[in-house]
């Protein structure tokens, strides 16, 4: 049998088949390259090139209004950022704004998802209503809230005074202690529906049988929620929190529309600083250095999440 297979004809046939396979693979590779090319060009032009420009500018003197400023800057742009008296307070405020926003969004999103998962009448109507803040453009939402919060003619202040909640109108966006918290509150209001719909979908996929079995074993609603429902929401929750930490930390428009980083820098975060370096100081080098640093912080968050998720999945596999 072996002798038959090893005949020259068989060898030739096998070689021909190998050639065919090779040609097919090459053709497939070409077709794949053609299909991938538009996406690759898109990535190169719209992501890789701007990113590499930012990287280049971070190490060069680049001034938007002064063409004579040029040359390799070594780490000068980073030094400019570190020596800026606003940098550390802005970094702290970025963390504060991100943590308050994401925690608030998650808590409100989870509470509303649990409420909307209950078998109540007109549940679909409530589900539709809850999504409204999320579909309002940030600029429109920001401007409306700014007007509503104005101390002199804002409806919220008037209502709160009439209800006896406050003795006199309060300038929520104009006080050092309340500006950032107020913008965070508005951000929570606008972003929580995204959590609601995502968590609601996860809640509805929790197997009924497990919950019913637990109930039969005398587990109360809180116990069932903590030990059965919450673990089922873990992956969705981690994903939501991770992407919102990034979205919130780099958010520029909400703060800019409502306070422009004020009063007296009380709501200035790193993205606002980047804008100021570029468009007010015209120092594109420093703006790029800070943008690189912000990207570094975000990458660190990503790696923490990735390692966390990986070790968590390993633990689950071991169990």
């Amino acid at each position, binding site marked *: 049998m072996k002798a038959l297979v090893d005949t020259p004809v068989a060898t030739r046939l096998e070689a021909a088949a190998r050639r065919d396979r090779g040609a097919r693979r090459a053709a497939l590779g070409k077709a794949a390259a053609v299909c991938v090319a538009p996406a690759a060009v898109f990535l190169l032009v719209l992501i890789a090139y701007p990113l590499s420009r930012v990287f280049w500018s971070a190490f060069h003197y680049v001034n938007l*209004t002064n*063409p004579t400023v040029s040359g390799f800057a070594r780490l000068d742009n980073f030094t400019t950022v570190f020596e800026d008296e606003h940098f550390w307070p802005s970094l702290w405020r970025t963390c504060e704004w991100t943590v308050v926003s994401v925690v608030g969004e998650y808590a409100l999103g989870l509470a509303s998802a649990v409420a909307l998962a209950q078998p109540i009448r007109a549940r679909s109507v409530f589900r539709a209503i809850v999504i409204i803040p999320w579909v309002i453009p940030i600029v429109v939402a920001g401007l409306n809230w700014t007007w509503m919060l104005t101390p002199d003619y804002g409806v919220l202040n008037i209502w709160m005074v009439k209800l006896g909640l406050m003795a006199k109108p309060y300038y929520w966006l104009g006080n050092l202690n309340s500006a950032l918290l107020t913008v965070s509150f508005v951000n929570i209001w606008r972003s929580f529906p995204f959590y609601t719909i995502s968590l609601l979908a996860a809640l509805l996929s929790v197997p009924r049988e497990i919950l019913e079995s637990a109930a039969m074993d005398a587990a109360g609603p809180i116990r069932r929620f903590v030990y059965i429902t919450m673990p089922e929401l873990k992956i969705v929750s981690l994903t939501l929190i991770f992407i919102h930490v990034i979205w919130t930390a780099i958010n520029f428009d909400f703060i800019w529309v409502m306070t422009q980083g*004020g*009063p007296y*820098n009380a709501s200035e975060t790193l993205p606002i600083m980047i804008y100021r370096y570029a468009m007010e*100081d015209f120092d594109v080098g420093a703006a790029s250095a800070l943008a690189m640093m912000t990207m570094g912080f975000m990458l660190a968050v990503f790696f923490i999440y990735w390692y966390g998720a990986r070790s968590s999945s390993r633990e689950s596999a071991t169990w």
Partner: protein
Amino acid sequence: MKRLTIGLAAAALAVCGFGAPALADPVTLHFWVAWSPQQADAVGAKKEIAAYEQAHPDVKIDVQNITYDALHDKLLTALAGGDAPDLSWGLPEWLGELSRMGALRDMTEEAKTWPDRSAIYPNVIDALTIDGHLLAMPHYLGIRALLVHEDMLKAAGVASPPKTWDELIADSQAIKQKTGKFGFGIAGTGVRSPQELIMYLAQNGVSLAERQPDGKYRNTWLDDKAKLANATDVFAFYKNLLDKGVINPDGASWGWEEEDTNFGLGQYAMVIDGAWMESRETQNPEAMKDVTISAPPYKEKPATFFEINPFYVYKAGKHPKETWDFVAFMNGKEFQEAVHPNNSPRSDVTTDSKWGRGFTVLAPTGVVFPPVPLGAVTRDMIETLGQTLLKNEEPEAVARWLAASINKDLKQAGELSGN
């Protein structure tokens, strides 16, 4: 038949242009503005531009309306990207940075032979000229004056508007006592606040930066005790406004919108503001009917902020002749009478109303920003008001901080003298 066909074809070709001079495509001028479409000046300007297009069929004006804040950023990025319009509106504070970028077209030669040049106030042309080059044309004048709700003044038993800082404080306290309303309003933040601060500094004999023999600029407060003391007085004045109940404490965070709206609604008695407040008479006729105009109160010498709002014409524009003709038209008597009857840069266009002559008489006391990149400088000025009004810092420390910051900003912009 064949001959007829050939004849018709030849005739058609002749009609289409063969053998005749080709009709030139109309020139399109890209003009970026920042008007409020419903305001009288915008309505008037649109009519005048339409008339200009009708009179010049070879020119088409492509108007793009953008808000002032967005206009600044859009212009800078468009200029850096080589995609600038032919001309635009802009704030006078941008003159230094646009000049530094080399973005502005020098119109000195055209202006020399422009027959209407003598009609423009000489100090207006001077303010738009850097090193002998005319780098912008005037648009309108935003001279600031003291606007007073006279009924509140009368209710407080005050006979005439305050002339000095001390009178302003005393009168405001009287108004607060008698009417319960605040006497004065300021912009603590936003584009308006540096314009008010530069005026108070000028009223006490100090300027932000002075031109030095090497052609560059420097803040000299830290080199001169008298100047530092005068600058300190200005921040002490702001502090007094707050501590003595002259202004609403929220005013520390007001921008121009809050300042104008609250004055228009009669929420407080006096404000330093521009002739555009005339439009509030239409919106709030009852509250605005008692408004009178007078010179801003001062300490050492009378001074007001003289906003010479410019038209910027860009070097990168492809049609310099048509652009000059159009910008000259907008500085012509007909356009100015239709669009800026009260605040024209032309001395032959003015009205006797309080919104006209009430402001133009103050032109000789007007002060302007130095022609240096001002982005960081004005931000630092806003910051000093936060330090004074929100952080309650000592006026002298604030003045010292601003002096050092201005020189740091000038250095960063390559404009610091001796550097």
